[in-house]
């Protein structure tokens, strides 16, 4: 019964970005229906500015209300939990969406069709809820909301066979793995009769108390859940969709899938593993995830070495990056620094991959090519593009002064803190192997010669993306400590129980 009424603010503030996104969705749909054809071209700017405004509002509101138990989601029955961790990940998602919009104006595949921006907004809405979800039901609904929109974005270029294949492949893999995930979630619910994260932890802990049967049952549930989440972050052996989707989908879609989707999934993964699984389960999942992380890093990097297509190469690179980030989740078994390291790494990764894909979309717009060989002479054809690409590649490779260096540093030191020195060593070796293919791109851009070295044009909108990401990467790489402190504070709030 609706016995007690909830103060409006307590019900609204936790889902403020989602409400804003809904308004934006309505605005974009109206714009698509009612505005004359000529002004429809502005839709990418409108949506981008909308996302950016929402991010600013969300951050300012978030800073004021975070830690205030009245506004952290208890007004919504603790289904949504808005702590500093959720604020940080939501900001990443909204920024990625804003920059994707600005990038999408240059894409012939998208051709500024309103449907793309609808899918983008719905996906961002699902992701914003994923990172704040504190209830199994919301987890699944949010995950599906994000996924369905991403399938549409992947298959958006309907006249391209590659894009249709990418969309279909992503959809089929996604549908199967999400069914498996749902089976795992329903087992967890069946064991305990609870769906709320905060109440699940103690309930599952009681389950492990009655012997090995309880533990075995939980391990099965854990495996099923891992299939679903492993698919979303592209962990081996659930990575098969990644290269094909990266190669076939329109570049802005890939930029969004590889950044926001990965960040949101890792946000969910970290929250899930730090709250839901009881301490008795740590030996089971930590070892398993450590093995997955090692295999994922190694396989991703090995396969990236031989790629000729830059989008495909970044696809394998993103598998490897998921492997690195998984180290932070493993470290979570012993230290909450693991969560902070994942948060920092994801912030860095979002900026870096957006920078790389912005350059890719600029080159694609000018030449229509995504082959690494066609990046020859980029430094003379457009120096700014080449510089941003250098920063992005160094950041992905983990070379200072780019942000990737601190990202990897925090991850590996969290792993050592948690007693996983061998995993950190595998990570370092992998980072060195990965440098080879990242540096190859740089070499081709500066040393390689193209027959036609006419200059590229960069649209103002894309220049904004290049500036924001390039400066952001260098800022995070040189002045890392405020960001790191923020991430550590956020990770400490993760396990705080509400009264």
């Amino acid at each position, binding site marked *: 019964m609706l016995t007690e009424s909830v103060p409006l603010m307590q019900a609204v503030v936790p889902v403020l970005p989602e409400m804003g996104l809904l308004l934006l969705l309505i605005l974009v749909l109206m714009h698509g229906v009612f505005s004359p054809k000529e002004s429809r071209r502005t839709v990418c700017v409108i949506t981008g500015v909308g996302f950016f405004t929402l991010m600013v509002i969300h951050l300012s509101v978030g800073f004021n209300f975070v830690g205030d138990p009245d506004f952290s989601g208890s007004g*919504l029955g603790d*289904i949504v939990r808005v702590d500093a961790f959720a604020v940080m990940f939501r900001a990443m998602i909204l920024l990625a969406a804003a920059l994707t919009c600005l990038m999408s104006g240059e894409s012939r595949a998208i051709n500024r*069709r309103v449907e793309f921006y609808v899918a983008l907004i719905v996906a961002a809405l699902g992701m914003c809820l994923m990172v704040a979800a504190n209830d199994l*039901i919301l987890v699944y609904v949010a995950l599906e909301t994000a996924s369905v929109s991403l399938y549409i974005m992947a298959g958006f270029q309907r006249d391209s066979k590659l894009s249709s294949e990418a969309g279909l492949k992503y959809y089929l893999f996604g549908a199967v793995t999400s069914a498996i995930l749902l089976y795992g979630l329903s087992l967890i619910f*069946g064991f305990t009769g609870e769906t709320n994260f905060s109440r699940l932890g103690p309930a599952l802990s009681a389950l492990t108390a009655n012997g090995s*049967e309880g533990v075995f049952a939980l391990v099965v549930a854990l495996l099923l859940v891992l299939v679903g989440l492993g698919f979303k972050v592209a962990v081996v052996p659930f990575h098969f969709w990644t290269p094909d989707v990266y190669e076939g989908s329109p570049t802005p879609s890939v930029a969004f899938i590889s950044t926001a989707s990965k960040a949101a999934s890792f946000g969910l993964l970290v929250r899930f593993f730090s709250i839901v699984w009881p301490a008795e389960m740590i030996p089971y999942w930590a070892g398993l995830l450590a093995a997955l992380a090692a295999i994922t890093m190694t396989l991703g990097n090995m396969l990236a070495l031989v790629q000729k297509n830059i989008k495909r190469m970044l696809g394998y690179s993103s598998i490897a990056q998921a492997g690195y980030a998984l180290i932070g989740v493993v470290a979570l078994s012993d230290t909450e620094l693991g969560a902070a390291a994942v948060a920092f790494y994801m912030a860095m990764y979002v900026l870096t991959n957006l920078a790389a894909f912005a350059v890719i979309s600029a080159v694609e717009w000018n030449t229509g090519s995504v082959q690494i060989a066609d990046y020859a002479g980029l430094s003379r054809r457009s120096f700014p593009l080449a510089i941003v690409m250098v920063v992005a590649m160094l950041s992905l490779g983990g070379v200072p002064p780019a942000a990737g260096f601190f990202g990897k540093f925090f991850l590996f030191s969290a792993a050592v803190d948690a007693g996983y020195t061998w995993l950190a060593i595998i990570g370092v070796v992998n980072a060195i192997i990965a440098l080879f293919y990242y540096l190859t791109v740089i070499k081709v851009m500066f040393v390689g010669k193209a027959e036609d070295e006419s200059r590229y044009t960069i649209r103002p909108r894309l220049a904004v993306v290049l500036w924001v990401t390039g400066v952001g990467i260098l800022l995070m790489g040189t002045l890392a400590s405020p960001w790191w402190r923020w991430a550590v504070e956020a990770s400490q709030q993760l396990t705080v129980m509400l009264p």
Partner: protein
Amino acid sequence: MSLTPLHAIFALMSLFTVGGAVGVVLNRNLIYAAMYLVLSLFGIAGLFILLEAPFLAAVQILVYVGAISVLITITVMVTRCVFCKEPPPRQLTLVAVMAALVMVTLGFVIMTRFGGLTPAADVPADSIEQLGVAFVNPQAYLVPFEVASILLLGALIGAIFIARDDLPRDEEAVGGDDHA
């Protein structure tokens, strides 16, 4: 333990569910497979009634037995090869072994975990009303309920875009418009 009519109904519904599922997998004729799927879904609706979840049973009948099976049948009928016998897929043994393995594992978990559970308290008479209230109560499941509708809206718009074969060509390719 004495057998009651409920046990007989449960056995019948289980037979529908499992037998229908087996029929879906084993039948090489897509139309027959779709019909077996309807049988299986119908059995699940029966199980929901036995579990005193009449609302779920009604939804199961309306959505799955009704709408989705019609959709599946239509989709099957527009495919090229409705009545022809397709060769059995390769690696059938491997798939069967994997499926059996998953079934044994899950079966073991379910038998050990749920075998000894005491039945839950009686389902309240106004369970449907409580479910409805939970969907619109901000303290309960308002947020997931609303997000589900956004999910459907997004899927609808996306599906129309992907499936439509006469996209308006009113927007010429991007280019030369950046002075605006």
